[in-house]
């Protein structure tokens, strides 16, 4: 009927069909929101480490939910149980859904067996961010590190995840590397599973 709006009666969140995840909002809307997240958290802390921790916490909450959502929607309620499986899930599936592309690279640390790195030339959240000189090594990628930690932890792979700027030759802006250091128990389990 013309002129009648498609008002939907209110239904419980669990009674509604799960969205396919194809909807989009403008990048600026996200950038504005993210900037408020960072600015608000700046008012709540005394130092950079604390600010990174708070952003990481916010990201963790996102990651935990992303894992649940994606496992339910894309993987028939199954999740990866092996180290490389979950890493490639983060690097490909999670990245693709959240940032529209797979991450630029996934590498194993050369010095330590328990370290892996996901690198991104231009991390979405850092797109419009420039770090003032007095904030040193602060990286808003801490939020993304939190997302990664949220996904890994909720999937049974506890890890310490941090974000770092890595200068690149011939590039004006450094890339961001998300460093994942798995807990000992994860590696022991992997070894047992063979």
């Amino acid at each position, binding site marked *: 009927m013309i002129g009648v*709006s498609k008002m939907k009666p209110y239904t419980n*969140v669990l009674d509604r069909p799960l969205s396919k995840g194809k909807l989009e*909002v403008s990048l600026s809307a*996200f950038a504005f929101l*993210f900037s*408020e997240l960072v600015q608000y958290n700046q008012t709540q802390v005394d130092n950079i480490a604390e600010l990174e921790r708070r952003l990481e916490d916010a990201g963790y909450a*996102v990651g935990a939910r992303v894992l649940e959502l994606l496992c339910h929607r894309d993987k028939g309620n199954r999740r990866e149980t092996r180290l490389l499986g979950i890493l490639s899930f983060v690097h490909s599936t999670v990245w693709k859904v959240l*940032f529209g592309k797979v991450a630029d690279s996934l590498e194993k640390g050369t010095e330590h067996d328990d370290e892996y790195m996901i690198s991104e030339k231009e991390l979405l959240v850092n797109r419009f961010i420039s770090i003032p000189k007095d904030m040193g090594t602060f990286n808003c990628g801490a939020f993304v590190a939190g997302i990664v930690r949220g996904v890994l932890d909720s999937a049974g792979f506890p890890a310490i995840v941090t974000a770092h700027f890595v200068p690149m030759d011939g590039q004006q802006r450094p890339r961001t590397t998300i460093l994942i250091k798995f807990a000992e128990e994860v590696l022991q389990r992997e070894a047992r599973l063979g």
Partner: protein
Amino acid sequence: MAPAGPRFGDAIFANVERVNAELFTLTYGAIVRQLLTDLEEVEEVNKQLDQMGYNIGIRLIDEFLAKSNVSRCVDFKETAEMIAKVGFKMFLGVSASVTNWDADGTCCGIVLEDNPLVDFVELPDTCQGLYYCNILSGVIRGALEMVSMKTEITWVRDMLRGDDAFELQVKLLKQVPEEYPYKDDE
């Protein structure tokens, strides 16, 4: 001036860079949860969300004007239509409609049928006083203030509270005459 209509907002939205709405939704959820933990009082959270929205609004208006290329609206009615048809569409990808005008054309309702902020959200009993989407009212208030309009914005319908849609009541308090930043003799 280009015609203002749903197509117009659509065209802008189609041409801007976009991100997955779930990232946006979950990030907003993380913000609200952080505020609830930090501030404890639901009332304070409402205020902080409104403030964040205001901060966004005063910056977002520049992008809105630059990308939409609209010129000055002739009256508040046109302004409200712009917000609903162009503003919401170009930033959030959803359209809104304007209803419930009062007799003198200074107060109306903006109705949102889809709202990307509230996917996956359910308010627990402890947060019944929370205006979950209060950031939106702040954005509109901030943006309008930058184009010389003082407004008061309140939620009249909220799906998270069991209503059938989201409706913001936008009330024009006064038009602030534009002041030049400099004096004649300077």
